[in-house]
C-alpha cells in the first residue's frame, strides 16, 4: 500500500492557524490534542499527525476504492518514536515513517514493495525512474478510474503516490 504527504512548514504557517478555536477538535481526538499541546513544538507535532493521516488516507483510498471523503477524525495516530508511528482506520492499521526537517514534514506508508521515494520535480523524477529501471523511454503519469496516479512504464503500470505543498514535492513508488 502506498501513500505519502508533505507539508511545507513556512507555507503552512501562512495558510493555517491550528490554534484557531475548534480547529484541533475538528481533526484530532482528545488524546491526540493532548499529545500536540504537550509537545515541544506543537505545530510540528500537529503536521506530523496530519501528514500521517493523509498518507494513510491515500493508501486506504487506493486499497478499498474509497470515494474521496474528508474525515481526518476517523484516523487515529500513535507515535512509536520520533520517526515511526501507526495510523488506525476502521479495523485496519498502517505503519508510517515520518521525516522531519527544519523546512518540511514528510510521511509515507511503509510498504515492502514500493519503498522508494524521490524529492524533487516531476521531470527529474520520471528521468530517475527511467534510468533506475533501464527503460527505453520516459515513463508517463496516468490515472486510475478513481483518479489515483499511476506510472505507465514500457509494458506495465505501477502505482505512484505524489505530494506537493509550497516549494516541496515528493513521490513514493
Amino acid at each position, binding site marked *: 500500500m502506498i501513500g505519502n504527504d508533505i*507539508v511545507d512548514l513556512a507555507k503552512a504557517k501562512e495558510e*493555517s492557524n491550528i490554534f484557531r478555536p*475548534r*480547529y484541533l477538535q*475538528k481533526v484530532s481526538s482528545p488524546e491526540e490534542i493532548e499529545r500536540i499541546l504537550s509537545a515541544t513544538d506543537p505545530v510540528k507535532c500537529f503536521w506530523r499527525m496530519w501528514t500521517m493521516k*493523509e498518507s494513510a488516507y491515500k493508501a486506504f483510498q487506493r486499497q478499498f476504492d474509497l470515494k474521496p471523503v*474528508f474525515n481526518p477524525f476517523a484516523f487515529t495516530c500513535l507515535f512509536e518514536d520520533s520517526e515511526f508511528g501507526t495510523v488506525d482506520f476502521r479495523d485496519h492499521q498502517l505503519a508510517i515513517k515520518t521525516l522531519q526537517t527544519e523546512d518540511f514534514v514528510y510521511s509515507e506508508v511503509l510498504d515492502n514493495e514500493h519503498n522508494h521515494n524521490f524529492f524533487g520535480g516531476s521531470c527529474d523524477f520520471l528521468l530517475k525512474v527511467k534510468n533506475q529501471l533501464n527503460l527505453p523511454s520516459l515513463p508517463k503519469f496516468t490515472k486510475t478510474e478513481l483518479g489515483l496516479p499511476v506510472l505507465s512504464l514500457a509494458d506495465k503500470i505501477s502505482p505512484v503516490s505524489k505530494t506537493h505543498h509550497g516549494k516541496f514535492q515528493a513521490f513514493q513508488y
Partner: protein
Amino acid sequence: MTSEAIQARLKQIVKPYVNNQENFENLSPESNFINDLEINSANLVDIVLDVEDEFDIRIENDDMEKMTDVETTVEVIQNKLKAK
C-alpha cells in the same frame, strides 16, 4: 434560505482559500474544493469553521466528511438551518 443564496455566501467563504481562480469564477454546484478549486486539504477545516460561524450552526464529523464540493456543502448547510 434558497440554495442559490447559500451558494453565494459559500462562495465568499471559500474565496480566500482558492488556488485556481479560473475555476472559482466559474463556480458551479459540481465544483470540487480540492480537484477544481485546488484548496489545500488543511484549509477545508477552515471552510467548515467559517461555515459554522457564518450560518451559526455546528457541523458534526459525519456531515463534515461529505463537504468536498459545493453541492453537498450547500445541502449540509440547508439541512442544518432547517433543523434549527
